Structure formats: C-alpha cells, structure tokens
C-alpha cells in the first residue's frame, strides 16, 4: 500500500520537475528584446501608456495586456512582438517585471498607484494620472521623459488635421449641431458612455458633437452607466455609436436589441445614423487608439 503512495508522490514530483524544465526554455529569450542602446528599457503597466509610447515610436520592452483579452490589444499586437507580456494591469506578473530589468517603469496611478512602492523597489517609476487631462497631455509628458517632444507635437498636429477633416464629413452627413450618444452592448447589460474617457473626449471634445439629452447629467467620474433599453428614446440622439464586443453573446444581444420595437423607433435608427464600431481601438483611450479610431470614423462618415 505504501509503495503505491510512494509511486504517486514520485509521479507528482516528476510532473513538477518536468514543469520546471519547461519554464527554462520559454522565458529565456524574453529579456533580450531588441532595443537600441540609448533607448530606455521601459516596462509599461498600462495598455494605454504602452500605446502612447508606440505613438512616439518607442516600443516598451514589456507591457501589461488587456484584461479580458489576456493579450496585447489587437491593433498594436504586431508592433509588440518582441515585448514581454506582463499579465493584466490589475494583477501584473511582478516577477516578469523584475526579470525584464527595466530602466524605468510607467504606471497608471488609477490602477497601480497603491503598489507604487513595489515598483520603485524594482526600478525608477513614473506615475501618470490618466484621468487628468487628455491623451495629448499624457503624450507630451511622456515625450518630455523620453526626449521626443517633437514627435509628440507632430503626432498631435496630425491628429488635429485628421479630426477637422472628419468633422466636416460628419457635419455633411449628420448636419450642424447633431446630438450624439455612444452605447455598448455586452452580454450582460446595455451601457451608455458618459463624457469621461474612453469615448467622451473623442466624440464630444474632438469631433465636437453635442451630447444627447441627459448624457451630461450622468456621473462624469464613471466611464459608463448601465441603462435599460426602455430609456433609449429619452436620449433623443441624432446619431448613435454602438460598441459591440466581439464575443457571440454580445453579438446575439445586439441582434436582439436591433429587433426590438423600441430600438427600431429611434430617430437615429430610422435615419440610418447608427455607427457600429469595435471595442478596439475605440475604447483604447491613448494617442494611438484615438488616432486609429479617428481613421475609422473617417471611413464611417465618407460612406
């Protein structure tokens, strides 16, 4: 009887030892990512900061991944091939951060602020409050740190000219002073976006749409509020941006919504001013994310 137990334990130990062998092969290459010598090795603990860095032409040596995706965001994935995944921002893989031996760590104060001392133990840490100012401010701040202020200015200028283009297109399509709202359909619920990031700034500040009735009354410290379908008509929007998650459940939920009489009675729907957009890059409130979203908006309105 004891021999059997011994066997079981040996088997377990073997399993573990095998597992150890595997780790050695997988993470060996992680840290020798190609970075030029004078460039700082940045570990980014926010997907948005990562994309701000990418906008400046800097690839962080490691970055956290999108929590739901468990991967880099799809629109920047191919640019981060050589970067190490550091786990989700809410629960980063600290050992991976240490293993990277970064020269500087960028964190989002709102997510990792509590753990800042832990990061400081590893490397000098720059904390950004992404709730303060727009991505332009974050981009400029980063530009200063990495000595690329000119790139930051150029990027912003590009964005502004693209924006004014899209603005004209949008006015042609929707008319002056159109009232707009953005909603998100998830498997579980229907959400309406407030004037806060991710969608508030690009729609209401950059593109200059008027918030639909009641949008401004929503709690602007939160990105969205959950609403019931019945109140959709109350917003009286001329155009609606709909973010639909790519998962099947969300798609089905959106189909159900589309079939409902309430939805079909909406002015925006009748006038065919519903714009279905994907969650990425639209919900990626970063320099790069908003730029890509704006490019998509251009396509949406030039149809």
């Amino acid at each position, binding site marked *: 009887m*004891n021999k059997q*137990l011994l066997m079981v334990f040996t088997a377990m*130990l073997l399993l*573990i030892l095998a*597992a150890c062998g595997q780790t*050695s092969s997988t993470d060996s290459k992680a840290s020798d990512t190609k970075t030029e010598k004078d460039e700082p090795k940045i570990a980014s603990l926010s997907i948005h900061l990562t994309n701000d860095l990418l906008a400046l032409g800097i690839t962080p040596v490691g970055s956290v991944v999108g929590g739901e995706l468990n991967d880099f965001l799809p629109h920047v994935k191919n640019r981060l091939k050589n970067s190490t995944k550091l786990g989700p921002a809410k629960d980063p893989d600290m*050992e*991976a951060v240490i293993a990277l031996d970064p020269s500087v760590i960028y964190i989002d104060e709102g997510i990792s602020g509590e753990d800042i001392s*832990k990061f400081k*133990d590893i490397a000098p840490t720059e904390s950004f409050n992404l709730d303060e100012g727009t991505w332009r401010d974050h981009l400029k701040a980063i530009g200063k740190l990495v000595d690329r202020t000119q790139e930051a200015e150029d990027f912003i200028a590009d964005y502004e000219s693209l924006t004014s283009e899209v603005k004209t297109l949008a006015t042609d399509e929707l008319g002056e002073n159109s009232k707009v709202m953005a909603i998100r359909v998830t498997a579980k619920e229907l959400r309406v976006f407030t004037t806060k990031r991710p969608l508030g700034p690009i729609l209401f500040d950059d593109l200059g749409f008027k918030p639909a009735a009641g949008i401004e009354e929503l709690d602007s410290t939160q990105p969205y509020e959950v609403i019931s379908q019945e109140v959709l008509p109350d917003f009286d929007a001329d155009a609606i941006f709909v973010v639909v998650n790519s998962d099947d459940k969300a798609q089905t939920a959106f189909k159900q919504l589309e079939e409902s009489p309430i939805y079909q009675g909406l002015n925006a729907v009748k006038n065919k001013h519903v714009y279905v957009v994907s969650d990425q890059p639209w919900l990626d409130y970063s320099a790069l994310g908003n730029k890509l979203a704006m490019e998509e908006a251009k396509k949406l309105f030039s149809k």
Partner: protein
Amino acid sequence: MKANLRSSKTLTVALALVLINVIVILISLNTGSLRIAPLEVVRTLLGFGDNKSSLVLFDYRLPRIIITMLAGIGLGISGAILQGVSRNPLADPGIIGLHAGASFGLIMFVTYFHSLNDKAALLIPLFTFIGGCLTAFIIILLTYDRYKGILPIRLILVGIAIAACFNAITLFLSLRLDEDTYTFASRWLVGNVWGRDWIHVIALLPWIVILTPIGILQSRKLDALSFGDSTAVGLGVSVLRTRLSMLAIAVALSSASVAMVGGIGFIGLVAPHLARRLVGPRHQHFLPVAGLLGMVILVLSDTVGRSIFQPNAIPAGIVVAAIGGPYFLYLLTKTK
C-alpha cells in the same frame, strides 16, 4: 507494543513528508517568471543573493509559499477534524458548506471594503470566519436533535443543502459587483492563491499556529467519538461539547485558509484519507499527518498551476481537483 509500532511509523511518515515538503518548497521557490537556479535560491535564502533574486524571493515568492503552506495545513486538519466529528469519511469543509459560507463572507467583504491589499486585509479571515460560522450555526441548528444531540449523518446532507443555498446567494451578490471585482471573486471561488504579500501571511498565521495545536491536543476526544456516541459518553467524554468545540476549530481553520487561497475543495477530503491509510485511524497520529499532506498537496498544486501553463497561471484549486479527483476515484475503487 502495537501502539509503539504505530508511533514510530507515524514518526517515519511525518519525517518523510517533511522531507518531501522541503523539496517541494525548494522547487516552488525556484518556479516563476524569473528563473533562479536552486543553488541561487539557497544562497539567497541565506542572505547572499543578488538584489534581483532577493527581491523576487522575499517580496513575492516566499509570502505566497508560506500562505500556501499554512492554508494546506489548515484545510487538511480541518477536513480530518470534520471527518472525525461527523464520523463520516465524506466530510470536507467544501462539501459540508463551510466554503460556501466563507465565500459569502468574502463577497460581503469585497462589497464593502473593496481594497484587498492594505490593513483591511487582516480582516478578511474574520469575515470568512463569520461566514463559515453562520453556515455552521445553521447546519447545527438543523441537525440538532433534542435527545440525540447533533446527528452526524445529517450533518453532511444538511451541509450540502446549505452549501447550495449560500452558493446561490454568493452568485447573486457577485453578479452585482463591477467587472474587476467579479473576475477576482470568480477566480477566488475556484481556489486561487491570491494572498501574496506579507500582510496576508500575518493575517493567516495566527489562525493556523494557534488552532492547529489545540486541534491536535483534542485528538483523544475525537478517538472516543469514533467509537460512537454512547461509547464516548461511557468513556467520559461530553459528546455535544466536544463536537461543538471541534467543529468551531474546523470552521476557523478552513475559513481562515480559504480566505487567502480561495475555495479549494478536495484537500480536506483527500489529505485525511491518505493520512489514515498511512498511519491508521488514531487522531493523534493522523491529524498531524493530514496537515502535512494538505501542505504538500497545496504547495505542489500551486507550483504546478503556476508553472505548466505559463504565463497564464491556473488556480491551484483546479489543479487540486484535477489531480485529486482521479486519485480519489482510484482510492474508492481500490478499497471495497
């Protein structure tokens, strides 16, 4: 003569388990995103390592492993006590509904405190303990018979029913949490070692260090209970009081452990079974061995979960179930 034989056998088994534990812990310390060679681990532990290794070991790996060890002991002993108290080899803190109560406590905690990292973390075991006590109280209330005291057989059936009820409430409450907290809660419920800071070690340590010896000191009374209630009374044991106090210890041990490592089932079931096969049914032998086994199983499972599917760690609870389930079935078919 026989007793002596048993004692020395227990000692051998315990020593063997301690040895296995040391090996498993060393392997576990060696496992992670940053690879540190075993020799380097030992050197760092002795204080000669470089900065990076000591940062990883002392700030990240060691607290987690200590938590896993403590929780393993807690769950193993808690299961062993419950099996003794209920005189039923199927008793396990998960099955009997204590985990469900503890989960309920944790969900209450995250709903009101949100933060899990600062000083408030010290309160988590307390909340899960209150949750565990609540279920235990309801279970006892429903299994208590005025003439016969607590009916051991009913204990489990009622426990299963209570577990179902509490799970429903917990699920309902967790649906109202925001997405991130919900993700945390759902991972926690399947048994994810999330406590990784020294503060979590401090939160768990006193529960295990104080309650484990108390439990083991009472093992004679558990032995008496195993002869049946009337014999136990004949041996001078106050059946009801023993049952209640032992139950309280089991609840406290399992709730505190569960607070840090999530609702890991099966350890409380498998560890006592293995222990009984190794050293026989006397509690003074088999309680400590069950604790040691619980420790081995949990540390092993956590290590496997962290290493095999890198970088995506899978919760230790799933590994325990994946290894423990088939093994337990094997055990059941082997022993008629």
